[in-house]
């Protein structure tokens, strides 16, 4: 199925939960309301015509002070889906505010989401509700803050950690 048809099918089924759609050079994207993201992801995985059996990537973007988006939600969590049987791709986005940066976890759908979501929590501070193991992935436990947030000072130095006693 080509990307435009996928977006049409999603819009027909989920209605207002699909906030907006667009495509750029053949890459199709749907922005999904947070309340519906788990249902949309499950539909993408289980619907035979879509059959997105692989979560290629799960990441986030910090739009703080981004030109044209100063007022909008600060974070965008991005899902890249691939279907191996159909060889098609789809990108889904969820927008969340800084005060309420919580997204439902995708671990029950794709186990690979476990480490992706830990990385996003570590780097951006987005909480994934229902995650089975919500620890940092890359940084150490004593690290304060979230390093890829745009307001994390580039020259901040944190204390060295010693060997475990």
């Amino acid at each position, binding site marked *: 199925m080509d990307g435009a048809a996928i977006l049409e099918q999603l819009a027909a089924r989920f209605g207002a939960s699909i906030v907006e759609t667009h495509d750029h050079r053949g890459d199709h994207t749907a922005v999904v309301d947070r309340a519906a993201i788990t249902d949309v992801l499950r539909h993408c995985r289980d619907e035979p015509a879509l059959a997105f059996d692989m979560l290629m990537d799960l990441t986030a973007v910090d739009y703080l002070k981004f030109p044209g988006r100063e007022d909008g939600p600060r974070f965008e969590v991005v899902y890249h889906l691939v279907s191996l049987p159909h060889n098609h791709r789809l990108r889904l986005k969820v927008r969340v505010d800084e005060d309420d940066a919580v997204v439902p976890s995708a671990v029950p759908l794709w186990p690979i989401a476990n480490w992706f979501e830990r990385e996003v929590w570590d780097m951006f501070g987005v909480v994934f509700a229902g995650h089975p193991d919500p620890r940092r992935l890359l940084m150490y436990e004593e*690290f304060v803050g979230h390093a890829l947030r745009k307001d994390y000072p580039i020259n901040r130095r*944190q204390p060295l950690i010693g*060997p475990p006693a």
Partner: protein
Amino acid sequence: MGVGSFFTSKLDEAIGWARKYSIFQYPFVTACCGMEYMATACSHYDIDRFGAGLPRFSPRQADVLFVVGTISHKMAPVLKRIYDQMTEPKWVVAFGVCTCTGGFYDNYATVQGIDTIIPVDIYIPGCPPRPESVIDGLMKLQDRIATGAQRY
């Protein structure tokens, strides 16, 4: 014994001379500098000429710690523990700019020079240093060892 068939020396100098030609290094290799370390260690540049041909992969059998590559904050406790496990006398070589100063990794994740964690005897700059630089650093280290100078 005839005249001229013996020589006198201070014990320290004799021990220093022996030590400088029996360097058992521990290569703590974390990044791309490791390739340059391997090039230096292999036959083309052959650090065995300087008595440093036998890397030991246990810190308890080594007397020179080669820190080769970027050290992140998460790796710092590991490096400190490896250093503490080495028996004295021991020396430390910072190999490459990442270990000397953090290099261009001026960011949240990288230790800004391993001398914030452990004492360093010889700094070899370069990104990565050429084998000639490494051998130069090794010879400077030998001079230090011969005089008994240590920083631990």
